[in-house]
């Protein structure tokens, strides 16, 4: 027990002593303490160094608005959480915390030299000084300024914790579980509505948590609170969420909450995620977010020991902690007097209460109460400065005469200064929801005005002060939100009677009397009254510009304690009223949100779905190397005996050319197009003519976008007069399906045709090579596989290994080829059966890499590799596919534009290096002459490039301006090692006549 801990009282559990360390020193606290209250109880006031000037800083507040006391909490090497507010860190046994932004130590910080240099570090200093040379900003100045002016250090190890995300729906979401929020939730729940009540603090209750002497409806507020929470908890339609911050208000009453599940636990169970992100869709929202006390910007107001008066009450009543021995109270609102009286009663000496309110500002009952308690009160006072190195030791008061002139007053020794400039309603969420704000002159703050969403504010969040009034306001808001009439019950209360109104801005501080001390407005970003005045003098009018120039309100606390004071100071400097200066936008998040909670489960292997084909396990068991194609895992090659990729691919290619290979083509998109207008539909979409395609025949199709550029390709088979089986590229399946559906629903509603995705209905095994027929003959029944009965591009239904099969005689290798389609649940066994049947023919499984080489040897394009979204069918050398007689197809009109027929468009060609051993880099540029200097005239680039085992040389495809007319010319590929000469050739390198295809 230290002298700062009271003998009794507060909500801490004095039977549970918790050990913790701060900057390596061991302390103890109680269960129910925050790190801040426990440090205060140990007499520790110095908690950090300020952002820019490295000034010593202590606690300003007791809640999430705290701007100074940012610390790093450390569980282990990977769990270091920087920049958390000591006021929101719940103590647990063994907690380790460190201060930030100091070196070598908190009490002796070399960075504090910035404070001595501060006369030359005014607002905009960095912008003005480090502008030239421009390149040095990113390379030199910015990183160093960041290192010197800093926050905590992010951990370097991966985050080992899990983060959950969920959706939730309710009729009424109540944000804030203070008296107004509890009353709102109770009233809404009484109607049977589903209610979610969330609060950022560890306990529900808000202001009531620090009101031991207050009564509600004739009983102690603590009893009322316990009974109210118990009743809500017993209601299955009510969800109570403590430790849960509503951080963002998204459109249509979608509110983002972060629930912190384990940060307060000594040993978090492995079963629990660290945080849960809630996306709540609420029919109505009640914002009972309360208000935040304003500091007073007087010189030296940032010394450790200078804090908000309301925070001192909270530390006393909730945590049983006296914030000091002897206090000077600087009162800018009536509530400060109440704090003085209560602290005095608890044994804190009150040196003086300096009432800094301007004459004419209405004094409340606080002053009389303070005088009645025998406390010294000085009216018409101001503060001229404070003294003390690492903690405040003295306050210098001034006296404001009737003419406004200030004369120096007495000095008071103290170890704590309690200030209160009034309370600012927390309108953040209302403003985020695009609701309007109005300035309330009596309160001296902005309050919510017309909402843009189905939302309403209640209690002090809309300026309704006083406990009974806040309870009634909350109950009315809750009932209205649930669509019921307001309850007739009127709450009564004793204590907590308001006095929260003040005047934002700085008390009088004539420059002649004030030593060169800073009066801080934004504590976290080190912005002073002088910075704001300077910005005004330099011509900044708009608060948006002043904010960016001075950085006021731009720290991680987003100006919770400083925003209104900054506005009022700018208003007074420019002789405008506060509402005329305007407001900067309130942005989410209300308080910082971890990346983990936003990422949720989308990390590592679960970042995206990993799609596997039916043969995956077979391939994996044989050591296949996989590659990602869209979301799919596809076998890239099947190395044997320690082969590298080059050796494996060569072997796989030669096997297909000389014997037989098998390849998993299941990932190709498949769409069944059915209906009497199916052919008409495909005629309008694809460039080809489909009317003359016979049943049980297939054709290679090309799909363009409206702009005439190649979008997708694939083989399309006619299974019946009114039924087509369309295949698409693996990556294009979803977008081709969406394009078809789009045209069907919006453009061609006249057609009787429907589309169904069958991508995953079928497993597809491509069997390719001169022995392909021999292999299939062992397994296939009901189909005549002979070339006469089943020629190239024919389709047949039959059975393979006893299961139903759709058989395509197609080839993407240039060899005799078949593609076996079976219902996917049979895919794994059919794959194995084909492999087994092919054993005697040396059947070789091959992957996507060999598939690429084989098709390149034949000059077959891959959409997306050899095309790039700017190539016409003619550019891609597939213009032959266009149905010349068709009146229209998607993209046809675009192809008629002169630029689309320009002879110098880039066209697909084959490229052969003069040195057959050189394999070009895909993506390498092509130029017409050698030894060019940059900037070179680039006339094309390499799109595909491989070593061809069957040809014993390298081959490449590329696009070259006017390429087909350059056949036989030598061009150059400039590379770091020198120009590589290449000859322009036909893109078909192997079996130009296509004889093998028809084998």
């Amino acid at each position, binding site marked *: 027990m230290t002298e700062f801990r009271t003998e009794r009282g507060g909500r801490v559990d004095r039977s549970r002593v918790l050990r913790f360390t701060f900057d390596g020193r061991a302390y103890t606290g109680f269960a129910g303490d925050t790190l801040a209250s426990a440090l205060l109880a140990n007499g520790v006031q110095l908690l950090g160094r300020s952002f820019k000037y490295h000034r010593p800083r202590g606690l300003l507040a007791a809640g999430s608005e705290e701007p100074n006391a940012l610390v790093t909490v450390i569980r282990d090497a990977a769990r270091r959480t920087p920049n958390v507010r000591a006021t929101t860190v719940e103590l647990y046994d063994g907690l380790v915390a460190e201060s930030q932004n100091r070196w070598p130590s908190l009490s002796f910080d070399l960075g504090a030299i910035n404070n001595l240099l501060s006369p030359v570090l005014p607002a905009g200093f960095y912008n003005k000084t480090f502008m030239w040379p421009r390149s040095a900003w990113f390379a030199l100045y910015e990183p160093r300024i960041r290192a010197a002016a800093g926050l905590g250090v992010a951990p370097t190890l991966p985050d080992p914790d899990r983060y959950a995300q969920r959706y939730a729906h309710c009729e009424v979401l109540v944000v804030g579980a203070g008296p107004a929020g509890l009353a709102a939730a109770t009233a809404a729940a009484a109607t049977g509505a589903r209610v979610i009540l969330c609060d950022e603090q560890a306990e529900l209750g808000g202001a009531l948590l620090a009101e031991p002497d207050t009564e509600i409806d004739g009983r102690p507020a603590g009893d009322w609170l316990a009974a109210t929470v118990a009743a809500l908890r017993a209601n299955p339609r009510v969800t109570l969420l403590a430790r849960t911050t509503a951080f963002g208000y998204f459109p249509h009453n979608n509110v983002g909450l972060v629930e912190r599940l384990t940060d307060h636990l000594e040993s978090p169970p492995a079963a629990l995620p660290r945080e849960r992100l809630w996306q709540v869709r609420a029919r109505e929202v009640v914002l009972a977010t309360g208000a935040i006390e304003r500091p007073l910007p007087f010189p030296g107001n940032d010394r450790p020991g200078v804090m908000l008066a309301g925070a001192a009450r909270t530390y006393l009543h909730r945590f049983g902690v006296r914030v000091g021995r002897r206090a000077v109270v600087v009162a800018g609102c009536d509530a400060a007097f109440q704090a003085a009286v209560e602290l005095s009663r608890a044994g804190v000496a009150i040196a003086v209460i300096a009432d800094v309110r301007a004459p004419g500002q209405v004094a409340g009952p606080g002053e009389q109460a303070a005088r009645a308690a025998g406390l010294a009160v000085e009216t018409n006072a101001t503060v001229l400065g404070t003294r003390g190195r690492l903690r405040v030791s003295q306050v210098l008061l001034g006296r404001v005469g009737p003419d406004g002139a200030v004369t120096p007053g007495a000095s008071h020794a103290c170890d704590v200064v309690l200030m209160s400039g009034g309370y600012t309603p927390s309108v953040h969420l209302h403003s985020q929801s695009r609701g309007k704000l109005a300035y309330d002159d009596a309160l001296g703050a902005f309050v919510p005005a017309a909402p843009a969403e189905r939302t309403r504010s209640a209690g002090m969040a809309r300026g309704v002060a006083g406990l009974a009034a806040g309870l009634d306001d909350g109950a009315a808001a809750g009932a209205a939100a649930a669509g019921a009439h307001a309850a007739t019950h009127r709450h009564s209360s004793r204590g907590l009677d308001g006095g929260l109104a003040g005047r934002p801005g700085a008390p009088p501080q004539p420059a002649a009397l004030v030593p060169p001390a800073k009066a801080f407005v934004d504590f976290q970003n080190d912005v002073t009254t002088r910075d704001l005045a300077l910005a005004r003098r330099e011509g900044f009018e708009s608060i948006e510009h002043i904010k960016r120039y001075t950085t006021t309100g731009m720290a991680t606390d987003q100006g919770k304690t400083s925003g209104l004071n900054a506005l009022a100071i700018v208003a007074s400097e420019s002789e405008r009223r506060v509402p005329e200066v305007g407001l900067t936008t309130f942005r989410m998040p209300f308080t910082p949100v971890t990346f983990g909670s936003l990422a949720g489960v989308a990390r590592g292997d679960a970042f995206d*779905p990993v799609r596997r*084909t039916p043969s995956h396990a077979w391939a994996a068991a044989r050591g296949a190397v996989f590659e990602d194609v869209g979301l799919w895992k596809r076998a890239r090659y099947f190395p044997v005996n320690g082969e590298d990729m080059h050796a494996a691919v060569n072997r796989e290619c030669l096997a297909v050319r000389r014997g037989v290979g098998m390849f998993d083509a299941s990932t190709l998109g498949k769409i069944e197009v059915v209906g009497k207008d199916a052919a008409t539909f495909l005629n309008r979409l694809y460039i080809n003519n489909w009317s003359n395609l016979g049943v049980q025949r297939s054709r290679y199709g090309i799909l363009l976008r409206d702009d005439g550029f190649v979008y997708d390709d694939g083989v399309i088979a006619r299974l019946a007069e009114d039924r087509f089986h369309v295949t698409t590229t693996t990556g294009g399946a979803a977008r081709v399906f969406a394009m078809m559906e789009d045209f069907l629903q919006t453009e061609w509603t006249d057609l009787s045709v429907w589309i169904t995705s069958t991508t995953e209905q079928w497993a597809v095994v491509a069997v390719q090579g001169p022995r392909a027929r021999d292999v299939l003959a062992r397994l296939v029944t009901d189909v005549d596989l002979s070339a006469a009965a089943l020629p190239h591009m024919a389709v047949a239904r039959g059975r393979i290994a*006893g299961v139903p099969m759709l058989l395509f005689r197609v080839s993407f290798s240039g060899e005799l080829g078949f593609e076996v389609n079976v219902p996917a649940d049979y895919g794994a066994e*059919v794959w194995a059966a084909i492999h087994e049947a092919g054993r005697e023919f040396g059947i070789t499984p091959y992957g996507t890499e060999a598939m690429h080489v084989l098709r390149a040897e034949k000059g077959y394009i891959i959409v997306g590799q050899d095309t790039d979204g700017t190539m016409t069918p003619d550019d891609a050398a597939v213009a032959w596919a266009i149905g010349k007689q068709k009146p229209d197809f998607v993209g046809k009109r675009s192809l008629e534009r002169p630029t689309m027929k320009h002879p110098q468009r880039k066209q697909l060609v084959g490229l052969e290096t003069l040195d057959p051993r050189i394999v070009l880099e895909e993506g390498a540029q092509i130029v017409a002459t050698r030894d060019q200097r940059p900037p070179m005239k680039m006339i094309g680039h390499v799109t595909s490039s491989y070593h061809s085992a069957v040809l014993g040389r390298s081959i490449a495809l590329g696009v070259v301006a006017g390429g087909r007319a350059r056949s036989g010319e030598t061009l150059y590929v400039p590379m770091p090692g020198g120009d590589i000469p290449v000859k322009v050739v036909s893109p078909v390198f192997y079996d130009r006549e296509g004889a093998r295809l028809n084998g």
Partner: protein
Amino acid sequence: MADMLKRTSPPVASRPWLAPLPAATRYSLRGGAEARAAVAAAFGVEPPTQACRAASRGARSALWLGPDEHLLIAPESDGATLATALPAALAGVPHSLVDVSHRQVAFEVRGPHAEWLLAHGCPLDLDVAAFPVGMCTRTVFVKAEVLLWRTADDRFRIETWRSFTDYVITLLAETALELPA
């Protein structure tokens, strides 16, 4: 090779909150009132016209997925019968009937935490008042499309395209770590 090979779909392990469901025969039916009437007779279940509702008789069900789209689900053993009966009933009627039996994998999320588990990936309101027994819809679970059908207060039938099954179950299992053992 007369023997039919065995169907193998992506595995779904049984857990307190999860049960695999047997392989099924499935058809995607597209078409208007005439097609629905034809199917009603041949299939034995009238495809519902109320949005997002399923109708069942015995082991056969018809699920409304769109104004002109229904999913027909029947036991695997009915496959051969339906492969003949449905096209015969629909002959001459504008429609599309496509066998999607193997496209999807079905499993059941069940128990007192079913709604809670699904809320971790599905943005719909799953309260029984908003999503009653008999309601079905295509929706998402995190990044995967799923078909969600409430078959009892504490039971949901889920169908995913087969390659998404592993993803959906992995994420459900991660969420279920929080459940009491």
